[in-house]
């Protein structure tokens, strides 16, 4: 409902808005115009705002580089290779049988972010552990082979990960993330 503005009577003009609100005509028609105009304007603003917001999302050429292939034969038993994927390191670790058995043994050790070791590698490939090498605390890169569990130790705030990349001590809330990847062949994986 439109109400007549206070100082309207100062202006000697035909004031249709005031006339409508005095009940001389159906005010809902005017309200409809106001609401329709505001809705059209809001739609227009949203349509213009979205491109201005979306332009900050990853661009087409950035997304085009979002999957990579990696040749596993480059990794020696007991070692890991870091691969850059989406501007971040991915750890590709060739685990020893000892490291695997330690990880499996800890499946029920009261984990902060419970996950079995089997859920963190591809079926039948327990030796290959592929993880996003970014500490889930504040984004630093944990160091390989350090810490009491033989997995990783984050140099920034002391988060400790085991040989399955699960968080075992320190401030980080979650396990090291497992990226989307698949085996193209026995010696080649595609990440992303």
């Amino acid at each position, binding site marked *: 409902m439109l109400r007549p503005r206070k100082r309207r009577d100062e202006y000697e003009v035909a004031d249709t808005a005031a006339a409508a609100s005095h009940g001389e*005509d159906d005010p809902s028609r*005017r309200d409809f115009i106001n609401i329709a105009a505001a809705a059209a304007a809001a739609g227009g603003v949203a349509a213009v705002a979205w*491109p201005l917001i979306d*332009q900050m999302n990853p*661009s087409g050429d950035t997304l085009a580089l979002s999957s990579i292939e990696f040749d596993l034969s480059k990794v020696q038993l007991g070692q890991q290779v870091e691969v850059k994927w989406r501007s971040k390191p991915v750890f590709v670790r060739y685990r020893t049988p000892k490291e695997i058995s330690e990880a499996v043994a800890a499946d029920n050790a009261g984990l902060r972010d419970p996950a079995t070791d089997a859920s963190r590698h591809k079926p039948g490939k327990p030796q290959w552990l592929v993880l996003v090498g970014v500490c889930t605390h504040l984004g630093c890169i944990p160091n390989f082979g350090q810490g009491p569990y033989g997995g990783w130790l984050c140099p920034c705030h002391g988060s400790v990960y085991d040989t399955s990349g699960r968080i075992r001590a320190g401030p980080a809330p979650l396990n090291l993330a497992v990226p989307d990847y698949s085996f193209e062949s026995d010696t080649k994986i595609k990440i992303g």
Partner: protein
Amino acid sequence: MSGHSTYEPKTAIERWLDSRLPILRFSKDHLMDFPTPKNLNYWWTFGAILAFCLGAQIATGIVLAMHYVPNAAMAFNSVEHIRRDVNYGWLIQFIHANGASMMFLAVYIHMFRGIYYGSYKAPREVLWLLGMIIYFLMMATAFFGYVLPWGQMSFWGATVITNIFGAIPVIGPSLTSWLWGGFAVDDPTLNRFFSLHYLLPFVIAGVVVLHIWALHVPGNNNPTGVNVKDKTDTVPFHPYYTVKDGFGLSVFIVLFGAFVFYAPDAMGHVDNYVPANPLVTPQHIVPEWYLLPYYAMLRAIPNKLMGVIALGVAIGVLFIMPWIDTSKVRSMRYRPMARWFFFIFIVTCLVLGWCGAHEPDAVVIPGVGAGFTLGDYPINSDVWLSRLGMLSYFGFFASLFLVPMFETPLPVPESISEPVLAHPATVPAGATAAPEKKG
């Protein structure tokens, strides 16, 4: 003009704010209740349209700067990256590039309106001067912006314009070298142009605030040019002119959108899709359309320094218009002679624009040959038409000074309301009161 404030704080928070920073009072008095002549026509909507254009250029420009690389080796590719890869980058870049043209279109209409209705005359000289400063800053900003894509036209346009300063005696060569940051337009030039291109729109926005301040002291001029006498001559800005400006802006945006979506390169130049090459100048160098009349005048004069001076005077004379004009009557509605000079002036600007777009020896009237050679060029050539246009251009300013000596103005109405009330028949029957009752 703004009179006493009608703002009444309604809540405790508004009262608290009003006694500390009366920004709501200011907004209500100046953006809503501001008494505006009730007879403004659609030529008056271009102020709001220009405010929109400036806002759109700043918004899209900030976005483009997030993706653009001001480096001679990467600038061209970064603009192509924006157009091809960045989400909606094509839309944002086309809005920005065409927005410059749309803003100049609007500013030229705004200026011609000011000239026709005598809006530059007392007491609005400072308003006009601030407007001319904005216009000058717009030209500088547009020039810097045009260099950034680092295509052939960007590069050679920058070369030509910066070389204009080389015409200045004694200090010219060292001045151009200082502008370039080297011995030619190169990476340092591109970097500083980018910096200035980002800076100047905010300077423009600041001058716009002063421009509106200077507008709100005497209030709007109007199509009759007659001063506002009392409240019956005005209506509050809101809703009467917010709606009118809004409608004018909507129509303008349709035109804007037509260029952005259907002819985004119509006002550009194909050579700017070729990366800058300091060793090859394109066949035919032209500035953007909004600078063509000045370019034509620059070329029309065979002496480098004199050409540059003519260019400066052509722009500078606009600044002193309020003091050239000797007519007591503001609006050309009531100036039978001056209005003809005004229309000739518009045609002159268009003809000079045509001249600037063509090569100096281009034939003007096809099919009759180039004619005899007068001085350096054939009589039927672009250059001689440019010289004629230049004479006409400066002739207009002379007419502002001279015409009032010979002209008998038509009777000027006593007030803004008088011509309307004197001819009630011109208002269609039944269109007077309460149109909402007509269903």
